C-alpha cells in the first residue's frame, strides 16, 4: 500500500534509484500529514455538530479553520500522488508505445510538468509573500492566511523534485531501453490498475471481517 512500485524499481544502485529512495520517505511523511488533516477535519466536523446542536455554542472560526487547513489536504500529498502515478492522464495512446517512443513521451510529459510546477512554485510563493507582507486574514475569525498559502510552494517544491527524478529515470531508459527501470512510475494499462484496485479493495474488505 505504501509502496506499490515493482521491486526492481526500488533496489537499483544507480544515482536515480538512490535519489528515489531518499525522497520517498519524505513524500510518505507529507502524505501522512495530509491524511492527518483529513482525519482532523472529520473530528472537527463532528465536534462542530455536537457543540452547535447539543451545547448551542458553535465553534467560532470553524469555517475559517477548515478553509485554512484545506491547503494541507489539497497539496501536501502532491509528490506522493505523482510517484504513485495517480494524477489523471489519458493513457489510450501511451499504452500502445514501447521502448524509446514511450520514454520520449514520458520525458515530454515530465518536462511540461516541471515547467508549469516551476512557475507555480515561484508565483505561489509570491502569493504567499504578498499575504505575509501586506496583510491578509480570513473572513470571520481574522486568522492570518499566510501559513496556509505557504504550503503551496513547499509542497510543489517536493513535487518538482519527484518530477526531476522521473525525468532522469526516463532519460536513462531512453538512452538504453533494455535497462531495469529506476525512479519512474511504470505505466500499467487501465486493466492492470483496475485489477490492482480490486485486489486492494478485496484485501481491505477481508481485513474488516470478523
Amino acid at each position, binding site marked *: 500500500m505504501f509502496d506499490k512500485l515493482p521491486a526492481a524499481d526500488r533496489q537499483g544502485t544507480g544515482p536515480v534509484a538512490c535519489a528515489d529512495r531518499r525522497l520517498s520517505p519524505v513524500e510518505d511523511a507529507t502524505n501522512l500529514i495530509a491524511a492527518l488533516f483529513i482525519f482532523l477535519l472529520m473530528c472537527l466536523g463532528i465536534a462542530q455538530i455536537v457543540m452547535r446542536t447539543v451545547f448551542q455554542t458553535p465553534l467560532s472560526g470553524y469555517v475559517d479553520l477548515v478553509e485554512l487547513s484545506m491547503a494541507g489536504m489539497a497539496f501536501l500529498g502532491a509528490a506522493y500522488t505523482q510517484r504513485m502515478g495517480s494524477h489523471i492522464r489519458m493513457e489510450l495512446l501511451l499504452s500502445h508505445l514501447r521502448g524509446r517512443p514511450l520514454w520520449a513521451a514520458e520525458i515530454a510529459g515530465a518536462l511540461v510538468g516541471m515547467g508549469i510546477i516551476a512557475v507555480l512554485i515561484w508565483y505561489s510563493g509570491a502569493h504567499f509573500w504578498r499575504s505575509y507582507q501586506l*496583510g491578509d486574514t480570513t473572513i470571520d475569525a481574522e486568522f492570518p492566511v499566510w501559513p496556509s498559502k505557504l504550503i503551496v510552494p513547499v509542497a510543489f517544491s517536493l513535487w518538482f523534485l519527484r518530477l526531476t527524478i522521473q525525468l532522469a529515470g526516463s532519460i536513462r531508459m531512453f538512452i538504453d531501453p533494455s535497462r531495469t527501470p529506476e525512479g519512474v512510475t511504470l505505466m500499467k494499462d487501465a486493466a492492470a490498475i483496475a485489477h490492482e484496485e480490486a485486489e486492494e479493495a478485496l484485501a481491505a474488505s477481508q481485513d474488516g471481517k470478523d
Partner: protein
Amino acid sequence: NVDGPSVFWKISMYGNSRALTSGMEALAEKVAEETDGKFQIRIFYAEQLSPARENLDGLKLNAFEGAGICNFYHPGKNPAWMVFSLPFLPIGDPEVGRYARMRMFEHPAIVADMAKWNAIPYVSGLLQQFELMGKGTPPEKLEDWQGLQVRAGGGLGDAMEALGATKQTLSASETLTAFQNGTVDAAAFPFTYAHVAFKINEEADWYTANLAPGTSECGWVLNKTAFEALPEAYQALLMDNRDLVLDTQQAAYDAEDEVNLQLFEETLQKITYSEEELARFREIAGRPVWEKWVADNQDSFDAQGVLDDFLSYAEEARAR
C-alpha cells in the same frame, strides 16, 4: 466628444449583473459613447478573472484595470476599510451614507490601504443598510433578542452578541435552509434586495424596518498603474462620472425597494423601534464595538482618526 487612443479595460467582478453593478455598466456605456468607442470598459462577471477574495492581488499584479471588492471578504488586506463595517454608524440615511462614504474614499488611510495593492478607491457600492428578518416571536424590545440565533457577521454579529443573541456565520445560500428548520431565528442581509435574492422573506414572519445596524463597503477600485497611464482626458472622464455611477446604483436600489417594501408590508410583520430604544441600542451595541475596534487597530494605523473623520463627515452631511 473626447479624443484619444484605443483602450480596453477589464473589471473583475464576483456574482452576476445586478443593482450593485448597474452603475459601472452605465459608466462603461457612457465612456464608450463619449470616446466614440475608443475607451472600452468591460465587466467580467462571476469571478471569471479572479476569485473575489483575491481581486486586490490581481490589481497588484496588473492583471486587470479595475475590480469590485468587499471590505469584509479580507479584513487583513484593508484594515482601515473595516471602519465601514462598524455597527450603528450614523449613516443610515442614504444621502448621508453616500456623502460620508465618498468623502471617506479620499481619506488618506482609506487610500493608503488600497495603495499597498496598487489600487485607488473609485466609487462606493452604496451597499444598503442591513436589517433583520426572522421567524417566531418578533423581538419588539431589545431584551427579546436574548437567546436568539442570528445569522450576522463582522461588527454586526458582535453587536447582536452584545444584546445576548448567538451569532452564526453561514454562507448566504445556506441561510435559507437553516432558517426553515429553526437552526437560525433571524438573519441579517442588506435591505431590501438581498433578503429577496436569498428568499428569506418567503420564510420570515417579521422584519426590522429601522434598526439600520450597519453595513459594509462593497465598492469599486481601479488599478493605479492603468489609471495613471490613461491620457488626462480619459482620467477626467472617469472621475467626472462618479456621480453617474452613484446615481444609477441608488436608482436601481430604490426601484427594487419600492417593489420589495410593498411585498414585505403585505406579508410580514414590520417592527419599528422607537427613537429612545434605538438610542439605547446604539449605546449597548454600537460604541463599545467601535472602541474595541479602535483599540485593536490603533497600533497599525490611526484607527481613532479614521473613525472620528467618518463620524464628522456624517455630521457634515446631516448639516447640509
